[in-house]
């Protein structure tokens, strides 16, 4: 299952990368931390490592490291606006439950 971006998310990512002036794509990952066990990593990518898996979605390269891949398969990244805040949202079919604030989750 690929990791994808929604069109809206892809547009914002491209904008952010353009504004930043460098970067080959977007790195998604998972870390073991937080109150529910795991947390998402959402970073600009300057390099692609040989072991990384690459996805392409609406013209944006999405880079996932091998350790994170099993937890992220089928994930769609969306961009949303909630009140005054806007940001990215993970839609991850692997998640069983997440902490109240949604910053961390477990599988």
């Amino acid at each position, binding site marked *: 299952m690929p990791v994808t971006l929604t069109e809206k998310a892809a547009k914002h*990512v491209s904008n952010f990368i353009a504004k930043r002036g460098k970067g080959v794509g977007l790195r998604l990952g998972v870390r073991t*931390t937080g109150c529910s066990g795991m947390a998402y990593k959402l*970073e600009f990518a300057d390099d692609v490592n040989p072991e990384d898996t690459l996805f392409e979605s609406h013209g944006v390269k999405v880079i996932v490291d091998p350790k994170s891949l099993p937890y992220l398969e089928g994930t769609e990244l969306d961009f*949303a606006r909630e009140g005054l805040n806007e940001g990215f949202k993970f839609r991850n079919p692997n998640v069983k439950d997440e902490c109240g*604030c*949604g910053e961390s989750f477990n599988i």
Partner: protein
Amino acid sequence: MALLQISEPGMSREPHQHRLAVGIDLGTTNSLVATVRSGIAVVLNDAEGHALLPSVVRYFPNGTTAVGYPAQAELVCDPRNTVVSVKRFMGRGLKDVAHAENCPYDFLDSPGMVQLRTCAGVKSPVEISAEILRTLRARAETALSGELVGAVITVPAYFDDAQRQATKDAARLAGLNVLRLLNEPTAAAIAYGLDNASEGVYAVFDLGGGTFDISILRLSKGVFEVLATNGDASLGGDDFDHRVFCWIVEQARPAPLSDEDTRLLLTEAREAKEHLSSHNEARITARLGTGELIDNTLPLKTYAEVTRTLVQKTIAPVKKALRDAGLTVDDVNGVVMVGGATRMPQIQQAVAEFFKQAPLNNLDPDKVVALGAAIQADVLAGNRPAGDDWLLLDVIPLSLGLETMGGLVERVIPRNSTIPIAKAQEFTTFKDGQTAMAIHVVQGERELVSDCRSLARFELRGIPPMVAGAARIRVTFQVDADGLLSVSAREATTGVEAAVAVKPSYGLSDGEITQMLQDSVSHSGDDAQARALNEQRVEARRMEEAVTAALAADADLLTPAELADIRAALAALVEVASGSDRGAITTALERVNKITEPFAARRMDRSIDQAFKGKKLEDMKI
């Protein structure tokens, strides 16, 4: 779920951790610590499984201490160095302490607060309370395996500032960060979830070890307001023990008792009382220091008789509190029972009869205050997810305002306003043709922005060009029930808007708040002067702007000599405005004002001329 932002490689933000926070009921007789685990408030027990920590501290000659049950066990043999009911001495001078002559301590009257001379040196009630708090903190940190971010500590509703401050000091001494002091009756009401009701009047009947308190609370829009408190500072479970003790002495008629035997019989009496809460009789046996044996059986009926006057003593303060609140028994929606002594069947019955309803009993009366404090601590530590339907029962601790010209603070929401609250104020532009306005949100009591805490900055752009002072910008401050501040600015004619959301008071410790408040008091003189000086500076700059603009437009109206005079006066004004002599600025301002008067008159004539020139009288609409 939370919205994420893209970070630089390797710089992903740590997600928030569950922040460990506890509620502490620092009681006269017993203290407890509770926390919220998986959304449920629980009392934390010590290693032996005891929930209660007797508020007893024993000092040893080598300076070490024993706190809780070990200290209580030794009460009999070392009454002088074993301090009980220290809460009664908090923030009190010797003359304020009731029945000081009955306490077996070596009191030392010192300014502000009474002190106790023990074998480990002179101890203040703050230090003694800190020992209790330190023990609870250690218990919590062991149970939760982590450092506490803070604690909510409960105090009686009638505690005055000195007593509250003493409680806070004790917590700080114990290494606890006080998130808030919470009134005990409010904590009890929170534990019962009464804050979830929409409206209502509640009575909190708190019969503890040494004190009796009755509080009448009104809940409206999630805020508990203490309408009235009353009570008896020397009525509590201990007095019931004492009645039983007297009964034992009357029955057995032993030889005059030593200090140790008195303690022993009081302990026996307390055990008998506790036994009678669930049994029909209690057996009392004890061997005195003299070798005399006491062996008696106290039936519940006799117990009820010997304590009848004590039970009646609780009803008079209840009546007074209701009268003070201007309410009757029928207005009371519920009665919350707090304190171990409310377990006594005769108390339950008396309360039910008086209020004509069964009191709320399903939570352990010993624990209910600590549980409520834990729930509040959990909220204050930020563990509740956003959007949870919880109203913070609170006021804002420091004023919120914004920066105006000259680095001055314009307060929009004064401190101690109950939240949620929204307030708006109108501001205007400073310069001709100004199209943007920077809004700087600050918090604090001082007059100058530099002395307050900066919370947020944002800009309102797209103001149509107008002369200075013509634009109307309405700035609205809104603090919602979660303590979240949002500030919005709106220009009236065009409707352009900008807004920002900030979290006030977050990261401001009570210490900082206290410091800021103290600063504002001690510097109020300086501040007033600084404010006046800055106002003059702003005026000077405004004048300079105005005159410079006028000269640029109409300098030809002036003779070279007049022009030179104005320029000189202006230069003088600019120079003094950078100094800090307010008088000199005022003088320079007046001079510029005076010297430009003829110039202003000529400009006025010219603009009228231009307006009228080449127009027929009948074309003009006057």
